[in-house]
């Protein structure tokens, strides 16, 4: 319905094409973006720049978040120390930290990746810790009974048993990491879809703003699908 209204409205001249571009304008801008790039960088360079920041930040968030989450879930003392701190920081929007991050770490790639990894980290930690707490005592008893060491217990019981929860964390974190890339690219980026949107907005290039938003949405959907596919493959043992 919305789509139809847009197409018909544009054709009949009811909508100001400056405020809402026509389908023709959008198509032309997208074609130009794909074939000629935007602002000295190719289409692929922009998309890959954003994907690179997201995936690197996400990977760091996961690699740091899973071990911390395992420890928080298993040791009440670790949880008692860290959880109030995390609960304090988690609700603060990551954008609020941008000035500080620029001040401390400059405007390079590191700052952008840091913001993304921190976002991913919170959600991975939270879900991993919940996962560990939900591991049935029976599994722990069985593992101890079979003579597993503490380290083996974490690696071979806690981690796989928490996987369904960790997977929820991964999906949330991936979606948020991808969303935060736009915010991260506010920091003087030369490439990336977030940069394209900001830059096009500054110059009232409204069609490019819509294209940037649309691409972020589509790629985000793709990421979610990929993780869901991974989930069904890895966690089939839940027998759902």
């Amino acid at each position: 319905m919305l789509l139809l209204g847009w197409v018909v409205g544009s054709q009949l001249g009811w909508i100001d094409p400056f405020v809402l571009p026509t389908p023709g304008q959008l198509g032309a801008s997208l074609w130009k973006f794909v074939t000629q790039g935007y602002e000295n960088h190719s289409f692929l360079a922009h998309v890959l720049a954003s994907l690179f920041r997201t995936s690197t930040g996400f990977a760091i968030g996961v690699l740091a978040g899973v071990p911390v989450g395992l420890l928080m879930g298993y040791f009440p003392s670790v949880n008692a120390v860290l959880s109030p701190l995390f609960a304090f920081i988690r609700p603060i929007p990551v954008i609020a930290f941008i000035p500080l991050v620029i001040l401390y770490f400059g405007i390079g790639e590191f700052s952008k990746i840091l913001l993304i990894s921190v976002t991913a980290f919170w959600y991975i930690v939270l879900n991993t810790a919940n996962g560990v707490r939900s591991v049935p005592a029976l599994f722990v008893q069985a593992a101890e009974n079979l003579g597993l060491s503490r380290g083996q217990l974490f690696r071979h019981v806690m981690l796989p048993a928490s996987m369904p929860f960790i997977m929820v964390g991964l999906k949330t974190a991936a979606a948020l990491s991808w969303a935060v890339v736009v915010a991260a690219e506010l920091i003087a980026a030369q490439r990336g879809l977030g940069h394209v949107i900001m830059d096009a907005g500054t110059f009232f290039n409204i069609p490019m703003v819509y294209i940037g938003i649309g691409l972020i949405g589509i790629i985000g959907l793709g990421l979610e699908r990929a993780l869901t596919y991974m989930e069904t493959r890895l966690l089939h043992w839940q027998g759902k």
Partner: protein
Amino acid sequence: MAAPGAPRLELRDVTHVFRAPVPGVPDTLALEGVSLVLYDREIVSLVGPSGCGKTTILNLIGGFVKASTGHVLMSGREVERAGPDRLVVFQSPAVFPWLNVWDNVTFGAKHRGVHGREYEERARAALTSARLTGFEKHYPYQLSGGMRQRVQIARCLMLDPEVMLLDEPFGALDAQTRLDMQEWLLDVHVAYHPTILSITHDVDEALFLSERVYVMTPRPGRIQAEFVVPFGRPRTIDLLGSVDFVRLKAEILRLLHRADRDGRPA
């Protein structure tokens, strides 16, 4: 027919109290002055009404819980922690759902540094004994309850257990499957000769499997009687209908019933 020599497993005057987690809630006296003994390669059963502390005894021997007072001895040494010299067959199958049958069965052996060819052979033998050949790549959610319990027992057999502790592992199975499992357990005992302590409220099962049967009282759990089961081995299910079997069963049931009635507050 208790074997001579030093006991493999012994409880000496064990009393156990579960402390209440908060003040104002009463503590629970679970076991009072329990003494029992298992000799090498014996099968002994512990029968009693639910809530009598049977599982607490198993948790003490398993090393999951420390007794308030008294001694829990394995081969004459005080039990300090859980360990694979006392393998527990849990009531609900403690198989790991993210591992297939093969990986579940070899789980303990693999992580204890038992090596390649040796454990592969042992695993094949255990799987054959458990009639799980052909299911190596299946996951627990694809198996029946009886098969899951066989996976759990096969995993124990891999480690050549000195002592096996059975926590009513057949309780949730249907009557036919339960009989199959009991017969299989007797075969396992012949092949692997572990010392077995079986906890159950099924008097048939206790008499069918055991050399001796301890009968417990309701809470606080005490040993009220010990029976020597006079039937030779091998035993078949025909035994379940014999006059001597039924007479012994009736006697144990009468004890359990009387204790239950007398134990109840007026």
